[in-house]
């Protein structure tokens, strides 16, 4: 990718040039405010007391910072009848996301390795069929999946949700690894075969050590997908196994008692924290996953 940037209009008038430059930065600043504002509001609201919130100034900083709302959100807020806060659901999401990410990434790596380096007749068709699976609206599989999970005896359980996330994550993980491995010359596999290595040995000794960047991209992508999922979570969980997004929605929409906006906002930030953290720490890979997931091929 050519690394160049457009320069602004070659203007002979230095005052006009400076004005243009200022205008540019002001516009960029306004947009930055637009994107930051909701998070700022969430954060300040979560640190205010309910009394202060009722005075009705969204933008103001808290007069008195209190972490009460955070404590309640974490361990006391009610989702319907239970009042355990976000904590158990946060861990549910972890229990779903970690194995879900690990299994779908590993399978995606193996699948991508096969369809890029061990092509056999029909491999391309299989890959196309899997790729297409990325695009279906999941509503079309909700009903039969609910029945099949029931038949398998894992309806409403965490293993059931892991299973669903692995199945519908496979298309993307396979795509990521396939596109990465396709650029590795097939001579590498040939050389290793002549050296006496087999399918798994070549994967383990040669391809996996090469795959760190794409593993990071895939893990981040899958983690974000699974953590942020709501549709599968709300459809296939029951009280006690719900993921964090479902719990958040329940807390916010729970009709019992006083509406505690500060608790809602604290709970929302708690639900957002892991993916935000991943984004801040590994933003480069996050963006790569997004663009790789959209520019297909």
């Amino acid at each position, binding site marked *: 990718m050519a690394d160049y940037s457009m320069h602004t209009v070659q203007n002979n008038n230095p005052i006009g040039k400076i004005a243009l430059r200022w205008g*540019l930065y002001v516009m960029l600043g306004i947009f930055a405010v637009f*994107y930051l504002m909701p998070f700022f509001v969430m954060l300040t609201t979560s640190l205010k007391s309910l009394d202060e919130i009722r005075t009705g100034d969204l933008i103001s900083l808290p007069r008195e910072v209190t972490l009460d709302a955070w404590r309640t959100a974490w361990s006391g807020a009610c989702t319907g009848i239970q009042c355990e806060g976000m904590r158990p659901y946060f861990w549910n999401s972890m229990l779903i996301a970690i194995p879900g990410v690990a299994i779908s990434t590993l399978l995606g790596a193996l699948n991508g390795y096969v369809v890029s380096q061990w092509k056999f007749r029909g491999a391309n068709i299989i890959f196309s069929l899997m790729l297409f699976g990325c695009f279906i609206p999941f509503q079309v599989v909700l*009903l039969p999946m609910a029945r*099949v999970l029931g038949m398998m005896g894992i309806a409403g359980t965490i293993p059931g949700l892991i299973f669903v996330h692995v199945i519908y994550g496979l298309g993307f993980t396979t795509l990521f690894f396939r596109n990465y491995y396709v650029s590795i010359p097939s001579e590498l596999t040939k050389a290793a075969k002549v050296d006496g290595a087999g399918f798994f040995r070549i994967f383990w000794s040669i391809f996996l050590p090469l795959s760190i960047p794409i593993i990071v991209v895939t893990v981040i992508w899958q983690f974000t997908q699974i953590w942020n999922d709501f*549709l599968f979570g709300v459809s296939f969980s029951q009280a006690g196994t719900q993921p964090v997004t479902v719990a958040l*929605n329940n807390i916010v929409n729970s009709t019992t008692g006083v509406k505690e906006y500060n608790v809602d*906002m604290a709970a929302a930030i708690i639900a957002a924290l892991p993916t935000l953290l991943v984004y801040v720490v590994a933003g480069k890979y996050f963006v790569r996953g997004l663009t790789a997931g959209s520019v297909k091929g």
Partner: protein
Amino acid sequence: MFKWLEENTPKLVLAPSFIAVMVFVYGFIAWTAWVSLTRSRLLPKYEIDGFIQYDRLFASPRWDTAFGNLFIFGILFIVIAMILGLLLAILLDQNIRTEGALRTIYLYPMALSMIVTGTAWKWILNPGLGLEATVRGWGFENFTFDWLVNPDMAIYTIVIAAIWQSSGFVMALFLAGLRSVDGEIIKAAQVDGIPTWRVYTAIIIPSMAPIFLSAFIVLSHLAIKSFDLVIALTGGGPGYATDLPATYMYAMAFSRGDIGQAASSAMIMMMVVFTIVVPYLYSELRSKDG
């Protein structure tokens, strides 16, 4: 035996995933398609009975609203997110010193769950204590911004939140596209004395046609699948003013116990996705093979 195993390892490795996709994607689509042609209600029935569910669907005013909303929401969301994303990309492409930080700020909403986005905007847009009350507090006593509870306007709050969430992503796509345009062409244009804005309109933007297509596909896909955001922001209300096909399908499947309606509305969603995605995927895969 050992030799057979050695030769067929790749196929054996791919087999479980392939079978899973065949069953859980294609098999399930077939199941849903089948059930959408039956009189299923609370429990699925398997006797084909024509297009009765589709007749019911198209006669339902709620579906009418949901389907219409899909187009209002989809078109506004896609068009505005594309324009905003392109604008941000072009602005950021002017040798901005703080580009890295700004990019991070514009893109972070993409890392959030739609439920979080919905929760945040629901709070901001609520008339009682949110933006409306704040602006009134500044002395503008007649300021009104009650879209969230106004059945005619509520769908636009979903558009706003969705754009907030996704336009940074469109920016990232376009920025990558801008940066991949051949630098020499642009240098040549600058040497020829062509003004910057003409360079963009005449050279750079037309050469990014594939990126527009990608962005369109991804955004339309997001629009059709939008479910979480509606649930968190409006819950489909007021009434069912902000229902989308995705929420309609969910309501039929899990709260109303009307499997036939759920299946037929899911199939309509599927077909909308098909008409957009299939030509795209087909051309992409073909061009890769060729």
